[in-house]
């Protein structure tokens, strides 16, 4: 694992767990009846072969899993591969799939993507630098596209998740079968190809849409599996690819593998032991503050690249060109930025927070490390009356980047 993975990996996992917590998914446990011989005996022959090879008979049904995915993605044929790392959680309990991805455009600009299927709705979301929204897809195409991806994961990692009432199998030939998943008004189908040894070799569906520059195009999507490895008493794909079959030919846009050491089955969406962790103290607090500050580094480094946008972050044209107090004092400013935000509170509730900012005051409410390195006092959470009284001539200073003594 390289240093960047080590640093950002922790943040990605935290981001992912926070995302899961926000979704308020059912905690389970789900259906965990053991799979019987009867459950698989009625399946098409190649499906039976695969289920038996995967060792599902006699084991409780799987109802969820969590795993980290590592691989590569590219935006167009011939473009360079971007490293991608994702955390995902799938549950058959009110069918859900959350796939939180991080990749670095051009190796430097972090892009955070999220594919979700929750409450029968699919969504694809992407943000550059975690602030600039670049992709936000929802609607019928995404409902089906995300659901069939859930089906793909279930086939590859936990086929006993398919042995439920909402899944139907259909025989095709000796080496393939169709599997159909119904979730309320969403229905998706895929053809699964199984080798004579029982291993799944490919998954093919037409229930996904390819986003080309002109819009969404209905296209065939396949995930050929290169090989299988054993992981405890289970089998796991060693490496897979994802391929679009579009008019211009095949476009392999993703490859990767699931990390066996991160794979956990039948777990609730959030791990209570972690989320119930109390406020960090001492070294751990400093460590967390360091990570927090580091997570902002890509934004620091790339700020000049997005200058035109950030110099007026959140502000309307009228606000950018409108007057502000003291405009006449520095008429020819080299740096002139107007930013704005809407707050759901009265001005008198906002005012104290602005007044109390500054050096030896409440800190700038921002990166804890830069505010108050290593001190135990958290960034202010309620305004203090003592420091709220502002007088003309009061000194307030932008934070120093140099660590100062804790007080």
């Amino acid at each position, binding site marked *: 694992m390289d240093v960047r993975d080590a640093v950002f990996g922790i943040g990605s996992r935290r981001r992912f767990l926070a995302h899961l917590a926000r979704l308020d998914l059912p905690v389970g446990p789900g259906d965990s009846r053991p799979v019987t011989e009867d459950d698989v005996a009625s399946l098409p022959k190649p499906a039976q072969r695969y289920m038996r090879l995967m060792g599902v008979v006699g084991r409780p049904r799987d109802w969820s899993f969590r795993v980290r995915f590592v691989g590569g993605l590219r935006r167009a044929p011939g473009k360079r591969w971007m490293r991608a790392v994702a955390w995902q959680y799938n549950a058959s309990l009110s069918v859900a799939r959350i796939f939180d991805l991080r990749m670095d455009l051009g190796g430097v600009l972090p892009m955070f993507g999220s594919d979700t299927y929750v409450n029968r709705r699919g969504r694809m979301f992407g943000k550059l630098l975690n602030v600039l929204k670049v992709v936000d897809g929802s609607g019928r195409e995404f409902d089906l596209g995300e659901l069939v991806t859930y089906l793909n994961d279930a086939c590859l990692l936990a086929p006993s998740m398919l042995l439920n009432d909402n899944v139907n199998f259909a025989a095709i030939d000796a080496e393939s079968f169709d599997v159909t998943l119904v979730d309320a008004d969403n229905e998706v189908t895929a053809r699964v190809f199984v080798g004579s040894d029982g291993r799944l070799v490919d998954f093919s569906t037409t229930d996904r849409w390819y986003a080309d520059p002109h819009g969404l195009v209905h296209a065939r999507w396949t995930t050929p599996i290169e090989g299988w490895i054993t992981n405890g008493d289970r089998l796991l794909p060693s490496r897979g690819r994802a391929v679009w079959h579009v008019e211009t030919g095949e476009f392999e846009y993703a490859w990767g593998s699931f990390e066996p050491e991160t794979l956990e089955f039948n777990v609730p969406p959030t791990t209570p032991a972690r989320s119930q962790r109390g406020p960090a103290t001492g070294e751990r607090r400093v460590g967390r503050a360091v990570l927090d500050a580091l997570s902002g580094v890509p934004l620091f480094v790339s700020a000049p690249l997005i200058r035109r946008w950030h110099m007026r972050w959140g502000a309307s044209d009228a606000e950018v060109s409108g007057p*502000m107090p003291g405009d006449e004092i520095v008429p020819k400013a080299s740096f002139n930025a107007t930013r704005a*935000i809407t707050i759901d509170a009265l001005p008198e*509730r906002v005012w104290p*927070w602005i007044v109390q900012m500054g050096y030896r005051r409440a800190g700038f409410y*921002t990166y804890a490390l830069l505010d108050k390195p290593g001190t135990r006092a958290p960034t202010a959470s309620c305004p203090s009356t003592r420091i709220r009284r502002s007088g003309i001539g009061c000194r307030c200073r932008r934070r120093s980047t140099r660590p100062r003594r804790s007080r």
Partner: protein
Amino acid sequence: MSKKVNETTAFKVKAFEPNGWLLWEKPDSTWSWKLVPLDGDRTRLITRLKQRYAWEKPASALSALVLLEFGDFPMIRRVLKGIKARAERWQG
């Protein structure tokens, strides 16, 4: 930036009107805040930072440039979001 608060590194409160606006100033730079009441008990918070890079003092101009061009946006974004979160949560 030097460690001591002095006339060149410190923003001073230049003028303000409670619950309306606030202006900080230091040589070659102003930082203003404005609160505009909106319908539904909401507030528009606008902030403007103006800085002239004083190239007659190259070291100080360069440090201001580096600090602002790289650091200002990530910081101010968190400041604005921080004020928003706290004001919305704070019930007095």
